[in-house]
């Protein structure tokens, strides 16, 4: 802390803001990716697309 001089609080607050915002962004993108992958796998496992296309012909 002392190495950062009298404005250490502002410097650390800046890096904390970067960590929180980027951490939140990273988590939201990765969680969304995982959710879509799981939903797609479930639908494809049930043969949703193929069965519907076959039956509509």
């Amino acid at each position: 802390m002392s190495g950062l001089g009298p404005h250490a609080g502002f410097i650390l607050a800046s890096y904390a803001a970067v960590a929180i915002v980027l951490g939140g962004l990273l988590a939201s993108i990765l969680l969304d990716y995982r959710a879509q992958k799981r939903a797609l796998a479930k639908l494809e496992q049930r043969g949703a697309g193929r069965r519907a296309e076959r039956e509509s012909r």
Partner: protein
Amino acid sequence: MAGLIDLANPTRFMRLSAALLPWSTGVAGVLLSVGFYLAWFVAPADYQQGETIRIMFVHVPAAWLAMMFYTMMTLSALGTLVWRHPLADVAQKAAAPIGAAFALICLLTGAFWGKPMWGTYWVWDARLTSMLVLLLIYLGIMALWRTLDEPSQAGRAVAILTLVGFVNVPIIKFSVDWWNTLHQPASVLRLDGPTIHPSMLWPLLILAAGFTLMALTLHLVAMRAEIMRRRVRTLTILEAERLDRLATGNAPA
């Protein structure tokens, strides 16, 4: 152009991006590690700003990326409206939260630097205000995506808003030249070259490259998620129509 048309195929995009992601993640990690090491342990304190120069190493790349992602979204908007590129609105939708995050980081870190250096967290000068407007445009675009269920319809509406909002990007860049602002003029992207000492310029450029690659990697992941979301939507509709047909067919006369 032929390469872009090839990438227009979502299946091909999914395959190429899957191969690219481990490399872009790795290189971004190395660049950010080296950049932060140089920024914290090698770059000297500034003769005027003192140790608060450390804030500039994240503030400046965040400002660049907030504008870069909006420019990318504008090109995607043209892709949606002019060429009807099938991945254009996917790219645009995926980019908005990333650009918004960097605009927010730029404003927060700027405020934390402003208080000890200018004596205030915020001032309504042209540079700060136009960056706040950029964040609000990003939030408006993200909200508009959520108001329309049909992705292609939402894509066209968002594309028009994005094109209109692009007028703000040159205003941000040149606000410090056009108006008398508290914010200092450009010190890296100048016609006569950077005015920063190399001991501070190199960490800044390496961190900017690292953040850019990290943001592009996140953009690829978000685009992949959006392509899957649309596939899920299509399959769910097809499945619902099939069940509806079955129910109608089995219904008693």
